[in-house]
């Protein structure tokens, strides 16, 4: 208890405590990226030359406007075919530099997503990624499952969205308002956004799934605040009532000299019959850097609120950040992200553990955020490749065949949800 000390002095000492020197690794990462990071040049107008006349400036402005309007006309597709960016060879670098996107090589005659007969529709988040895997948030988008008919949804910023089983509603995973992360629900077209009024003093929430009948949501409650038990809950999709704690007992946080790791759970998905859920659980490592040596498993538990979770993918094999598991529509398999940045399959009883072979033909890759098609014959996921330095959505059969790109923008797409089209 503080009684005779000056709070302002304490706060000042705390805020001044910390590093002041840029680590050499960061300095090298910056400087080695410069040669591959192109500087943006403007129109090159000599604005500051004192001898330039006003009339010359007006002429230059008019020329610039004409170029701009002409460019918009040409590149918007109104004035002709869209011009694809030229492939660029990229030297390896300590950090992903700013690059011109390089598409994965596709043999001539290969099918496109439009040729696959994909049904239903998808929603996904998009990021502008000038120099990193995840860049600035652009927005939430919807499209047909083959990537056509793309449109932006006018909804609050969220890291993901999930289509309801009947295809009529969207669950926005974690919009931030009033200093809290809380789920929103909206119509499938993004209209009629309503925030679920969560009772009690819960910490941040991240919701990731609908029950098969569309009446309940699956959410993880953060452990940053200790007012309520952190863990995985189900709750009413209409008014956030009837909170039911399905899994608690999150692993403890561990402090090291370099990092502090916060163990915990991440909500995954309901089984197709609604009787069980799967979720991620992360255990912290030991030593100086417990976050770096943390391990993640996939667990399943029934939805009664009285079950004991059982491990179906062993600790250390699952991806802790973006490997959230999803149940196949027929209930026979679960797809998830592997710790080594590939996709895996497992049966709900923990047998049949297998890797989905992803062959991009383009070197290093990172596959994550998988989701099943409504008919269970395809898996859509996010794929980052070293060659392209960005992420796109792809589909693949569960046996790894017919890998095909769905989104072809110049940005990063992430967190796909695939649902049936609303009647």
């Amino acid at each position, binding site marked *: 208890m*503080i009684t005779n*000390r000056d*709070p302002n*002095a*304490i*706060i000042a*000492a*705390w*805020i*001044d*405590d*910390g*590093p*002041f*020197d*840029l*680590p050499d690794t*960061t*300095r090298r990462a*910056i*400087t080695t*990226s*410069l040669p591959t*990071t192109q*500087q*943006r040049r*403007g129109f090159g107008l000599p*604005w*500051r030359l004192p001898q330039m006349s006003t009339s010359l400036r007006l002429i230059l402005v008019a020329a610039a406007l004409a170029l701009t309007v002409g460019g918009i006309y040409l590149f918007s597709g109104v004035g002709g075919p869209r011009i694809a960016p030229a492939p660029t060879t990229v030297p390896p670098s300590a*950090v992903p*530099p*700013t690059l011109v996107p390089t598409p994965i090589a596709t043999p001539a005659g290969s099918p496109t997503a439009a040729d696959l007969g994909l049904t239903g529709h998808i929603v996904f988040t998009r990021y502008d990624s*000038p*120099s*990193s895997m*995840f*860049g*600035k948030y652009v927005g939430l988008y919807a499209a047909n499952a083959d990537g056509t008919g793309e449109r932006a949804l006018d909804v609050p*910023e969220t*890291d993901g969205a999930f289509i309801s089983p009947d295809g009529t509603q969207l669950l926005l995973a*974690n919009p*931030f308002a009033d200093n809290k992360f809380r789920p929103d629900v909206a119509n499938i077209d993004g209209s009629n956004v309503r925030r679920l009024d969560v009772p009690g003093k819960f910490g941040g929430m991240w919701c990731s799934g609908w029950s098969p009948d569309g009446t309940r949501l699956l959410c993880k409650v*953060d452990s*940053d*605040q200790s*007012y*309520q*038990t952190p863990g995985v*809950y189900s709750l009413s999709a209409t008014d956030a009532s009837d*909170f039911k704690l399905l899994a608690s007992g999150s692993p403890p946080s561990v402090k*090291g*000299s*370099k*990092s*502090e790791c*916060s*163990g*915990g759970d991440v909500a995954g998905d309901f089984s197709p019959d609604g009787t069980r859920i799967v979720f991620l659980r992360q255990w912290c490592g030991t030593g100086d850097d417990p*976050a770096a040596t943390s391990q993640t498993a996939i667990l399943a538990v029934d939805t009664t609120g009285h079950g004991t979770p059982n491990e179906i993918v062993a600790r250390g094999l699952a991806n802790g*950040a973006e490997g959230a598991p999803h149940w196949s529509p027929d209930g026979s398999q679960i797809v998830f992200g592997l710790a080594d940045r590939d996709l895996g399959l497992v049966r709900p009883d923990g047998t049949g553990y297998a890797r989905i072979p992803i062959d991009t033909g383009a070197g290093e890759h990172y596959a994550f955020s998988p989701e099943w098609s409504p008919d269970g014959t395809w898996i859509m996921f996010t794929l980052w490749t070293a060659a392209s330095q960005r992420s796109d959505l792809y589909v693949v059969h569960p046996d790894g065949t017919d890998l095909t790109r769905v989104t072809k923008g110049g940005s990063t797409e992430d967190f796909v949800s695939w649902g049936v089209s609303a009647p």
Partner: protein
Amino acid sequence: VTTRLVERAREGDEIAFTELVDLFGGRCYAIAYRILRDVERAQDAVQQAFLIAWRELPRLRDPDRFETWLHRLLVNACYEEHRRYRRWSLRVRPLPVDGPAGRDSILEISDRDQLERAFRRLTPEHRAVFVLHHHVGMPLAVIADVVGVPEGTVKSRLHHATKSLRAAIDADDRFDLPEVRPA
């Protein structure tokens, strides 16, 4: 000297820009760490800010405003880092680099814990204003320029942040409420 370096870097001189990194990198890192409370995310934010600075530098008309402009890029990079990682709640939670024991007897472990928790509950916008004012020592008008909001908003954010942190160390029992298990 800085102005000349900025002018050279603006023309594409990588060596000049590297010298700018050496000149301003430490301060940027210190600011980013204090906003994000995480060494790795702070490094990412600094890297992002400098790479954007390099890319956009030809568009900076007044080299004398480089430092303010760089701080603006840095604060925006911190905002993005915060958003980018908010879903990764299982990731690193930072500790002060000197370790829990600290180097100043005025700062006890309980103070650190309470302040860290209170600070994490602030939005990145509030954190940025607090750090720029109390750590960097920027006047409110300059902060308003850096973060791109009116000076009144800066005052309001500063007041809110300071009040929250003071409350954290004034009321230790605030976090000792019993857990309530939902029905």
